[in-house]
């Protein structure tokens, strides 16, 4: 039996980095630089969150302005791939562009999945420009509650 080290949720590495990242980002929120973004805010390809729940994983991805039919999600040998293309239409030839911070074109993000994910039961939904993928764990990997028997 493998022993797993006890850890505090608030002291876990990702949480700590997240906090540090927020602190550094907040430096950029200083009003003297109103036009700057947080240093670590992703802007060249979609940002992804991966969250672990007791019986599933969920992946959330920001895909604003992308058509549902242009998104392609696949799982092959334990790797989740989100592919797609962001298209923008240009109505007239001689348009004047004042400011452009958004990107367009094709993108691809891959995530290696732990072996406990049941690839057959993966579900995905898309609303308001946010893609949510639910990856359930296999039954044997789910956290089980052990009932105490009273004598």
């Amino acid at each position, binding site marked *: 039996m493998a022993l797993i080290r006890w850890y505090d949720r608030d002291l876990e590495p*990702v949480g700590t980095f997240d906090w540090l990242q927020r602190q550094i980002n907040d430096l950029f929120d200083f009003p003297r630089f109103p036009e700057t973004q947080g240093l670590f805010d992703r802007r060249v390809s979609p940002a992804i969150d*991966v969250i*672990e729940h007791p019986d599933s994983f969920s992946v959330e991805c920001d895909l604003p302005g992308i058509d549902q039919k242009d998104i392609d999600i696949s799982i092959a040998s334990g790797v989740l791939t989100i592919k797609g293309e962001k298209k923008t239409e240009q109505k007239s030839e001689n*348009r004047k562009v004042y400011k*452009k911070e958004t990107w367009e074109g094709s993108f691809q993000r891959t995530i290696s999945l732990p072996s406990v994910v049941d690839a057959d039961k993966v579900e995905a939904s898309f609303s308001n420009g946010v893609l949510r993928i639910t990856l359930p764990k296999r039954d044997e990997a789910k956290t089980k509650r052990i009932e105490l028997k009273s004598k």
Partner: protein
Amino acid sequence: MAKDVEVRKEREKEQVRFIRPFCFICEEEAGVVTLKLEMPGVGKDQLDIDVDGNELQITGKREAGSGEGTYLMKERPSGTFRQVYTLDDTIDHNKIEANLEGGVLTLNLHRRESEKPRKITIKPS
């Protein structure tokens, strides 16, 4: 150490981080300035667009996550989208059209009639 965590948690509860949405501003046809703001996760009900004097204020609240679970990866910024623009006199403050689709807010700002380019024809004498 545990006390630090408590203090930090308390502080974070009070703070709301404003995220500035990425913008795309262009003038597709003369007289209409199109402003596009990427606000993924914002629905129609969570969006506020106000014109206050010559300020255009846009605030969009993201759907809050369940808050459960452990983050293994976190790249999406959390907070409230907010951006304030100053409208100049060439923009008609009463003629602003807004449309929210797929996490992108599109605002069409019309220029005032008096600011539009006019052609002056010479009368034949």
